[in-house]
């Protein structure tokens, strides 16, 4: 497989930009999924709607559960990304300062 160089030039980011990347995107994704879950829950909170949906094979409970799962997993992913970013930042910091214990 041929390696494709990044289209973007590499340079050292400021620490704030580190936090602003993956974890922030995932947090935004979690918030969007939570809003989607709330909108769907509001829609099917009307008894008539829930029954109409069930009558035509819309699985209301499963749908709401799926939304809940998505929000939970997005939260978890945001946490993981945050940890990865912290590790990377500390790695970057240590590389600036030299290997830990190497001085």
């Amino acid at each position, binding site marked *: 497989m041929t390696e494709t160089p990044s289209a973007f030039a590499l340079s*050292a980011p400021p620490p704030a930009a580190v936090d602003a990347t993956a974890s922030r995107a995932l947090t935004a994704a979690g918030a969007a999924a939570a809003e989607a879950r709330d909108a769907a829950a509001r829609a099917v909170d009307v008894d008539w709607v829930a029954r109409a949906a069930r009558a035509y094979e819309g699985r209301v409970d499963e749908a709401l559960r799926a939304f809940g799962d998505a929000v939970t997993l997005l939260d978890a992913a945001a946490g993981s*990304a945050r940890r990865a970013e912290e590790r990377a930042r500390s790695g970057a910091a240590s590389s600036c300062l030299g290997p830990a214990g190497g001085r």
Partner: protein
Amino acid sequence: MGDAITITGGYTAAETATLRDAAAALRAAFGRLDDARLELARARVALSTGEVPWAGRTTPWSGAGSPRGWGPPGSGLAGLGPEAARATAAALDDVASADGAVLRALGQLEALAVAVLRAAHLYEEHDDLAARLLDDAVPAGVQLLAAGLELLLPPLALTGRAGEAPVATVAGAASRAFDGAATAQQGDGVRVEDVTRGTVDGVPDRPLPDLPVAGSVEDALGLLEVPNKAGPGVMAVQRVGDGPDARYVVLLPGTQTWNVVGDGAGDFANPRDLTSDLDLVGGRASDYTDQVAQALDRVVPEGASVVVVGHSLGGIAATRVVTDRALRRRYRFTGLVTAGAPSGGIRVPDGTLALNVENAREVVSALDPGPNPAGPRHVVVRASGDDEVVRGALGSAPYGGATHGLAVHAGVLAEARAKHDPALDRALAELDASLGAGTPGAPTRTWYFRGERGGAQVVAPGDGRPDGVSAGVPPGRPR
């Protein structure tokens, strides 16, 4: 279950608007889930490449580019230390899991939105559709009947008059001839007798039972078997409760004999016969509805609440009874339930909540001049034949005879009830309550009435009796 059972009618505009609002909310939820997927994609790029191009930054977020990297060569993670690389790989795994969960939520949401839209759309469409079809549709079964009658009755003029449904003309013409034949043999009029003994559980001459309160429409269909098997020409009226709150359930079983031309005394005694079928499908007075009118007159007080439940011939008789103007002035017909009845083309006034149950694998309910006119107060449950109950009935009787049975219709209704269609749920709740489901311990009394033709005047063949002579339903076009 898919479309094995279709339910039409029973909705109101307000409910449809509610469903549309819900559909709009679900569409908004779609939008937010799409946003979530976009953010997930960004997170994946950031974690994989160390870059944040969407933010206008082309800078790595880590120590990428370090010569002592642990990440995959060529990736933005190449410069990460081992712990950071492991943490990043774990985060990418979590992102993949979260993305899968969002996709699953999207799939569920799509199914939910489609279901809600279908519910909202179907009911609006069917209201218009029913009205359109009323004027021009003639089911195949009716055409078959018409063809059969043409062969049987060559001397009769079978051409439809302007504005009259062909089958009504055919059946009307046929029944006029048969009626003449019948009256020539036995005279006109139905004698109605209160009976207390009959066949019960296959044993003749036993006391006829006081029927229990029907817990549901399906139960009421089951109760029809009692008068059905009690003896020739028997129908029943049940009182539920007592005092001023008492309500009445009229149970009209179907055809018992297939006589159309009498060949001797006794042949025409039973009004539950094909002659009544033809009269009713042809839009004329029938001896069966005369019998019902007399029975009501004897035991149901004026102004009382009445639900009429009928199977096959009993179903069309029930429909004629609840739509009869004279009878509507005397009684409050709160509900009508028909199973396998050729009652299409008859508009039931909104004061009566109507429910028709039928299936595509039995011919009887197709022997009518038009489809059942579904509307806000008229719900039609129709099985295509692909559902479990009808398939089972076909399996037990390959030529389809069993598909017209009461048990099959009750089973189809139970299947439909399990769908929890909002329109049907509401109709069933109202009908169940009218039958007495909310008062299972209420006192009941059941009367059985046997109808018997004959006795009065004799008229010339083909002449028929004058309309409106008897206490029953006046003839005329289906309303």
